[in-house]
């Protein structure tokens, strides 16, 4: 019986999903305060909508972090910058422009 009650809660649409979305994003970004965190951990256990949203947002962030090609600065650009910085000391001023 208790289990059925619990499931009923889980499957009920989130009563305040907009607010939850805001809190979930703060938690994932590491920007939530203690109250927001405890709200998140108690609410998300009982709310399917929010648990799904949380997992989806996490998977999107993971995809951005892991799947995007990271462009590295070309070696010649790094060498050119080092050269120009050193050259600036040969001039009377520090102007490297």
């Amino acid at each position: 019986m208790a289990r059925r009650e619990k499931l009923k809660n889980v499957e009920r649409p989130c009563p305040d999903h907009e607010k939850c979305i805001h809190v979930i994003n703060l938690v994932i970004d590491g920007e939530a305060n203690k109250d927001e965190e405890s709200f998140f951990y108690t609410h998300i256990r009982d709310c399917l909508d929010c648990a799904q949203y949380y997992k989806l947002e996490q998977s999107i962030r993971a995809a951005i972090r892991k799947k995007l090609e990271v462009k590295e600065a070309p070696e010649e650009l790094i060498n050119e910058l080092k050269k120009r910085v050193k050259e600036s000391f040969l001039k009377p001023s520090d102007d490297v422009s």
Partner: protein
Amino acid sequence: MMRKRTPQRYSPNEKVEIFELEFLPHIHSIYNFAYRITFDEDDAKDLVQETYLKSFRFIDSFDKGTNAKAWLFRILKNSFINEFRKKNKEPVKIDYQEVEAFYNSDEVNHMITSNLQVEAVKEMIGDEVSIALNSLEVDFRTVIILCDIEGFSYEEMALILDVPIGTIRSRLHRARNLLREKLKKYAGSMGYK
């Protein structure tokens, strides 16, 4: 980190040391960001070069040992806005406040639904994620990159972009909604509901 402060007087050796030990280690992040906002390798190189030469020119206003990465990103963002956009004569000047007001409206909130599935995102390849991210307007793309790829806090992002923290929150919120919507379209084309 970026407060008004008395400039330092670094010796030439100290300057080179700061440049090489504190600024250069961030060059790949800076370049990657420059590329993601310009979509062009040559433009990205120009922006990075300008950023680093400025960082050296104004090195006395940097406090050794503080947040060099955020300081460099701030210089890059200013260079992009002040010079790069002007030089490249963007065809349409967008009123970003107007754009934000539009995306903050309830109407759009209703448009953006979330039936994208975790499995669909996991199946996606880099190109699909990249196309979705690249299709966001530059201010929205910027906050996603700074937050999700570079790991800046909201406070650091507010300093880098020179806007209040509330604007960072709402811009991120809208950016995430739009990105989810774009990804949903790809997921749909892959046969996910």
